[in-house]
């Protein structure tokens, strides 16, 4: 079990989606804090730990991001010895087989399609937390 304070990193450029995701977390009464990166570069910066931020227990990645795409961020994560085991979940609008295959090819742990119905999103977030934070044993990640 991971520590209660281990944050979830949400990489999402759409502020509406960020707000809705936060609301869903709130409605799901999630205890984990959420850190938001608005693009791929920001995500990489955060994960590099330059500013002393704690490593997240889970990364939720959008596919289509400004500058560095979600796939590129994932590829970068899998190339970093300290964090390459970090669970990465895609949360995206795309149902394109090509995107799904590319995501798993690069080592994604899960692939979810953003629902339009907020109730569906809420259900998804609940399941996600219950499984990934509640049930799943997360690997140790971090320097040293």
């Amino acid at each position, binding site marked *: 079990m991971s520590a209660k304070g281990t944050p979830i990193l949400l990489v999402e450029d759409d502020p509406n989606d960020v707000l809705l995701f936060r609301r869903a977390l709130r409605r799901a009464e999630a205890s984990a804090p959420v850190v938001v990166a608005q693009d791929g570069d920001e995500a990489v910066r955060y994960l590099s730990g330059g500013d002393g931020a704690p490593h997240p227990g889970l990364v939720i990645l959008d596919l289509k991001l400004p500058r560095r795409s979600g796939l590129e961020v994932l590829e970068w994560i899998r190339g970093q010895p300290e964090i390459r085991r970090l669970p990465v979940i895609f949360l995206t609008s795309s149902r394109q087989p090509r995107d799904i295959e590319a995501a798993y090819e690069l080592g994604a742990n899960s692939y979810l399609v*953003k629902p339009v119905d907020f109730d569906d999103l809420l259900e998804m977030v609940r399941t996600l937390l219950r499984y990934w934070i509640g049930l799943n044993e997360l690997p140790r990640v971090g320097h040293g």
Partner: protein
Amino acid sequence: MARRSRRAPLESSFANLIEFAPDATIVVDPSGSIVFVNAQTERVFGRRRDELIGQPVEVLIPERYRAAHTGHRDGYFAEPRIRAMDTGLELLGLRSDGTEFPVEISLAPLETDVGLRTMAAIRDVTDRKRAEEERLQLASERGLRVQAERLVKRLEDIQAVTDAALATLSLDELLQELLERIRTGVQADAAAIMLLTPDGNALTVRAVVGRGASLTAEREIPIGEGPAGRIAATGEAVIIPDVRAEAVVSPFVQEHMRSMMGAPLLVEGRAIGVVEVGTEKLRAFTDEHLEFLRLVGDRAASAIDRAQLLDQVQRYATDLEQRVAERTAELTETNAELEAFAYSVSHDLRAPLRAMHGFAQALLEDHAGEVDETGKEYLGRINSAARRLDELIQDLLVYSRLGTSAVDLVPMDLAPLVDEAMARAGPEFENGEVAVRVEAELPRVIGHRSILVQVVSNLLENGAKFVEEGTRPEIVVRAERTNGRVRLWVEDNGIGIAPEHQERIFRVFERLHTTDAYRGTGIGLALVRKAMARMNGGAGVESEPGSGSRFWIELAAEGPG
């Protein structure tokens, strides 16, 4: 008779004998004067006896021989001997009308009481000469026939090559091959084929063998100019015995060839070009050679014509291939664009929808106290509109992907596939809201699994959707197998479809009812039909208003029968 024979002296009997001899017979004295002629002489020379007696014998021969004859005559009298006709001495006789005729003459000295005389028997050999000439003619014709047969043989050889090996040659290869054969056939130093330019106003050299083979087309030869131009214009084969006496267009020919000949390449009477051969020898070609060239030219012409057509066909084919390739590239690009479009639609269009739905929901839930009942109803309408638009986008994406992505067909079981489709169609198919009965035995088919699940799911949703209010939807799924095809039926107890609408419902965005009455995007059945087409199958419906609908899809069955 007895009286006459008794009375006639030997001399007169002899004279009688000569008188009726079949040859013209004359007797000449040593001075050359005619002293006797017989009846046949009158007929042969067309002269009366009294005109000849006393005349020099030379009146009977053409004037040009007379002087010489006088000498011969004197010589003969100096040394007389019998000379028979078959010694082959051929002379000419002269008739009174001035015409000449071939004669054979035999001579015999005649000792008489008045001295030495010469008797000459002269035979008109015109008929024999003619017969002889005819015989010679015949012989030479026979020779010609032999030659002609030889030529035909040679032609057949060429034809054999033309029909078999040449048929696969390109035009240039064909011309080279033909020319080499022609050049060898007439022992020429060079051979060339000139073809009409596309405008038909000039000839260009297309192939050369032998001397000058390395020459490229020097320049165009206008029709009507030079031997080649004239041959093309007139369609007549010609021999040029001396090139230097001719206005030859080609400087090469002018410089290196002494004699030449040429023949037109005729196709259906129209010259498509000219074949020419040349040598360094003066007057090298005979009529026989020319005939050969003409005949070969005819053969070559059709072969060239065919090769030109083949070349053209080849060019068209290459052209077509290229155009297909270009079109394919264009289509691939269009496909890629379409996919990019679909991607962009799925990603970008749905984001604002999520916001609409999400924030309307947030208002309803987090700010319920500040919104009255009408406001709440409006928010609910925003929510359902957003949901409907999302379904529409999802269906459109699936529909467009069906058209662009490859569909691999594999054998599969229908039964688990129908189960999966039910799960996908919604919880009402599994919680009993919709009564579904699936026939126990479903055959195996050849199709694309995920597309087929989508299709069956669409049919189930469709069947459950259009029922009278308050009626529990009942659906029967069954299959029948005929002639290697499987037809899967999805039968409902719904409102049915009038015959005039049964085709319309398979088109995109065709709806028979308002969205308020029956939900749906108007894409579901269009997707069914398109999907079945991609799987080499089909889809249709049997229905009557009020008695339910029986939708069917058809696919190839796995296995024989």
